[in-house]
């Protein structure tokens, strides 16, 4: 079955099979191949099978559709043709036979479920695996460190806060908890000493990908810069809040 390989520069983004239904390309979300780029019109072009041929047709796009660097309105495609739409390339792969292409499975077919249903472990794994197969090649973007359906998160290193200046109940704190609070409250992890210290000056959350410091009653600074939203901490960062300075370090 023929397919289009969507690429951006050297990166392969997606492989789109072309079967009985036409493949639409454009910026709007209802396209089969959605390219979110200003140089691409909302409905830019379409590719479809006609008799035993693969055809591309420009849908009156603003910037045009190019095949092998020539602007086209409607042409037959052949193996390895390079389609250029905006800055994205689609390479034609005829896939062997062009006859009778099968209907591609683009969606996971399932009946509409009105009532709440719960999948048991086996069905859940099956359905998630099936869905991954239908989606085709991996999409672009960062490699997510995904956990397995019921796997545990990867082993983590713990970090510590070392007191540099100011008055707290300890000189060093191992950040083993999910939430560490710097403040005067009984519940605080790093207890501040002194008059008029806030109940919770700042907070540090331990997430799967590291530690994040965020404001509470006060806005902490990290290496001198104020932090108004949860921000990831790096080895050696100097945190200052409510008259206390702490060094963030990883311990082995």
């Amino acid at each position, binding site marked *: 079955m023929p397919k289009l390989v969507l690429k951006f520069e050297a990166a392969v983004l997606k492989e789109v099979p072309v079967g009985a239904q036409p493949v639409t390309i454009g910026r709007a*979300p209802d396209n089969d191949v959605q390219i979110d780029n200003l140089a691409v019109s909302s409905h830019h072009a379409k590719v479809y099978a006609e008799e035993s041929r693969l055809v591309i047709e420009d849908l009156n796009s603003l910037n045009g559709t190019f095949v092998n660097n020539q602007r086209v309105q409607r042409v037959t495609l052949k193996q390895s043709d390079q389609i250029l739409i905006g800055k994205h390339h689609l390479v034609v792969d005829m896939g062997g036979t062009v006859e009778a292409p099968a209907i591609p499975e683009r*969606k996971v077919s*399932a*009946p*509409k*479920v*009105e*009532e*709440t*249903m*719960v*999948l*048991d*472990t086996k069905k*859940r794994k099956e*359905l*998630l695996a099936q*869905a*991954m197969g239908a*989606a085709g090649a991996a*999409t672009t*973007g960062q490699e*997510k460190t*995904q956990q397995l*359906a*019921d796997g545990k998160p990867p082993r983590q290193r713990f970090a510590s806060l070392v007191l540099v200046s100011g008055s707290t109940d300890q000189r060093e704190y191992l950040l*083993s*908890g*999910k*939430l560490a*609070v710097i*403040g005067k*409250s*009984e*519940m*605080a992890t790093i207890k501040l000493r002194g008059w*008029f210290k806030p*109940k*919770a000056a700042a*907070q540090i*959350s*331990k997430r799967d990908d590291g530690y994040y410091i*965020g404001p*509470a*009653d006060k806005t902490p600074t990290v290496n001198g810069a104020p932090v108004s939203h949860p921000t990831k901490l790096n080895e050696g960062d100097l945190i200052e809040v409510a008259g206390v300075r702490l060094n963030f370090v990883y311990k082995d």
Partner: protein
Amino acid sequence: MHIQVGARTDLGRKRGNNEDSFKLVPELNLFILSDGMGGEAHGEIASNIAVETIAAHCSEGVKNKSVPLLAEARPELTEKTNRLVSAIHAANHEIYDSAVKHPAQRGMGATVVSIWLNETRLSVAHVGDSRCYLLRAGELLQLTQDHSLVAEQLRRGIITREQAEKSDMQSVLIRALGIEPDVQVDADEQLLMDGDILVLCSDGLSRMVSDVEIASTLLTAPEMQGAAERLVELANEYGGEDNVSVVLVKVEPTPAGFFWRLWRWLNKPLNS
């Protein structure tokens, strides 16, 4: 700590019975909401078992700290959070056992979302697609991840956000209480600040009313009970496809003046 609570549950416009339950335990600062499922009235039974069991187990745990935890304690979580997780395991067993004893109840289950407030620390634990949101400084944050098939597919990059919104399978869950002998409970801890509003709700609210409208309703409501009723009203106005329940907990600002603090300090026992 001072809190203001509002809560409301409603049948909605399309359903024959209400399978949602909630339980408020203000003396413990513990709040639980559950959405049941299963034919006949079994959803009601399941969600009721869930909220009652969790409240009972947490109460007991507070009175007697040596009551064993039903799940391995997670070292990164506090005692209260671990106790809440244990309570949810207890609820899972109760629902599962009930279905074993009464075969007609087979397949019944429930979601649960629960919060336990402790001064500056909030424990949140949940299973399923009932949600907990935090409204702080005008911003509404979803604190829980939905345990639905569609949400999982979205998280893994299998489908896009548009596909998720149009999906036919939005009510298919990958985790719920009572379905299997064991369950994986998600738990988290957050900082609590004065002025925070916590929202617990079943999917009957989150599917009908957008986050933006939930936030604006909370920001413009003078008090929590009125806000809870208004949210339920909105869900029904937009179709009321399912039972809708919401629990609102507002952390009231405590007086922070110098003289109030001085008074408190002067009144503290000498040896504390």
